């Protein structure tokens, strides 16, 4: 128990179950297989990382879990049931800045509450205010999105998603567009938010350090079409801090995953080059 207690929720029920997932797009040069034979189980309350080389199709996995896209074939169960309607079981943070520029920060955070929580405008804004405070944007409640930096925009997106209290939070490379300092600050903030909660988080990234710092469990993907190459438990205890990066174990794991990914990245690169020639 002590052993397992470090990585949360090992024995709890499954939040997401993927079986033999396959997704084929109609590309310009013929059908393009983004996912093939992708199977995994993500436990309730787990911080799951989907790690893979750029362009391998890992984003497609969360889009399918979200219900934004149907799989070509395979089974998706979210909380034990098939996904019938997007936005019911999961919240999502996108890589692009998707906060609405015509709304203020507070109105953005309150947006989803209209559909997911009861109460009038006043209560919704009251609740939104809590989440603005949680992500450190209390002083920017009435600012418009264009006045914010990239990191602040993503904090609005995170607060908006969390305010609707989804059981599962999907994050599709949410810090991918940020500079590295902002990125580290955001990782720390995300840790502090999720450590105290029992939310399932499914976090897509190609950054090995980010994966090790944030995740309970890492699902390493193959080059396209994405499948599961390896599943790794991340043994570091909570609360985690950026100082984790200095630990030997962290470096060892980073190197191990780097090796796993390197071949895949090469394969991905060669394929991309082949496509360009075609």
């Amino acid at each position, binding site marked *: 128990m002590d052993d397992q207690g470090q990585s949360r929720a090992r024995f709890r029920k499954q939040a997401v179950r993927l079986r033999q997932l396959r997704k084929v797009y109609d590309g310009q040069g013929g059908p393009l297989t983004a996912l093939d034979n992708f199977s995994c189980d993500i436990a309730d309350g787990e911080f799951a990382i989907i790690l893979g080389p750029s362009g391998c199709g890992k984003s497609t996995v969360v889009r399918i879990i979200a219900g934004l896209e149907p799989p070509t074939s395979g089974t998706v169960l979210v909380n034990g049931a098939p996904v019938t309607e*997007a936005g019911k079981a999961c*919240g*999502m943070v996108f890589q692009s800045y998707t906060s609405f520029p015509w709304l203020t920060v507070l109105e953005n955070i309150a947006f989803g509450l209209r559909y997911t929580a009861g109460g009038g405008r006043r209560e919704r804004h009251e609740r939104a205010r809590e989440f603005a405070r949680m992500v450190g944007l209390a002083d920017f409640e009435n600012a418009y999105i264009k006045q914010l930096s990239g990191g602040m925009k993503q904090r609005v997106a995170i607060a908006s998603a969390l305010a*609707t209290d989804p059981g599962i939070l999907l994050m599709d490379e949410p810090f991918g567009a940020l500079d590295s300092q902002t990125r580290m600050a955001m990782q720390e903030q995300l840790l502090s938010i999720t450590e105290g909660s029992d939310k399932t988080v499914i976090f897509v990234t190609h950054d090995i350090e980010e994966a090790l710092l944030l995740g309970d469990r890492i699902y390493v993907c193959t080059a396209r079409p994405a499948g599961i190459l390896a599943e790794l438990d991340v043994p570091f205890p909570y609360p985690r801090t950026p100082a984790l990066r200095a630990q030997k174990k962290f470096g060892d794991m980073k190197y191990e995953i780097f090796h796993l990914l390197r071949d895949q990245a090469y394969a991905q690169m060669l394929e991309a080059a082949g496509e360009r020639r075609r």
Partner: protein
Amino acid sequence: MSDAGDRAPRPVGRGRQWRVLLGLLPFAALAVVWVALVRVFGVRLVFLPPLEDLPIAIWGMFANEGIAGDILISCLRVAAGFVAALLLATPLGIWMGYSPRAQRTFEPILGFIRYMPVPVFIPLCILWFGSGDLEKVIIIFLGTFFQLTLMVQDAALSVRRDFYEAAIMLGAPRRALIFRVLWPAALPQIFDSYRVCIGWAWTYLIVAEIVGARAGIGFYIIKAQRYLMVPQIFAAMILIGVLGMTTDLLMGAAHRRLFRWSERNTAS
């Protein structure tokens, strides 16, 4: 990303007055050329009246010829035709921008009609509706509606797809997407289309009034031409310019006020 974003920051304070002065320079140049044509090159008064006659002509238009009534009539015609076009084009354009089926249904016919020059409708409209106010309003409507619908559609189509997905993931039902995402996201560009179209509305009004009317600024110009009242022709043209520019300035100011959030409106 936005065109304004790439520009250098705007000067403030005294720089603002300097910008206005810059805008007046071409007017001054035009006046110089005008005076030179009359005084130096001796262009005959029938073709080009002395510049100093224009203020007198404008004063006379208001004092003796009741141009204010013509202006009012012209403005009302523009307003009626344009508002009618706006009220119909906005929902249709948004529908076409939202539903590919609606787009496939309406785009061909709109694209077909919009390439018919508006003046070709005038003979038919006079035949059907006479040469009164109704005919003018209909000409303005026909001149703006088809273009405006396609421009509104374009604005609706340019709404980022991930905004819809973000709204859906925040729990918004599909039916809420038009009013809670498409409309607010596209509104600044739709408003821009209004601004462009109202300029066309003025053009079509004058065309319709010149072809056949008993009142209005265009009618005034045709009357002045018949009696070779050349300064009055120029005076009326200047009046149209001033009216158009005022409308445009007002619409521009409204845009900055209404859409403070827009990336394009840099002052916040």
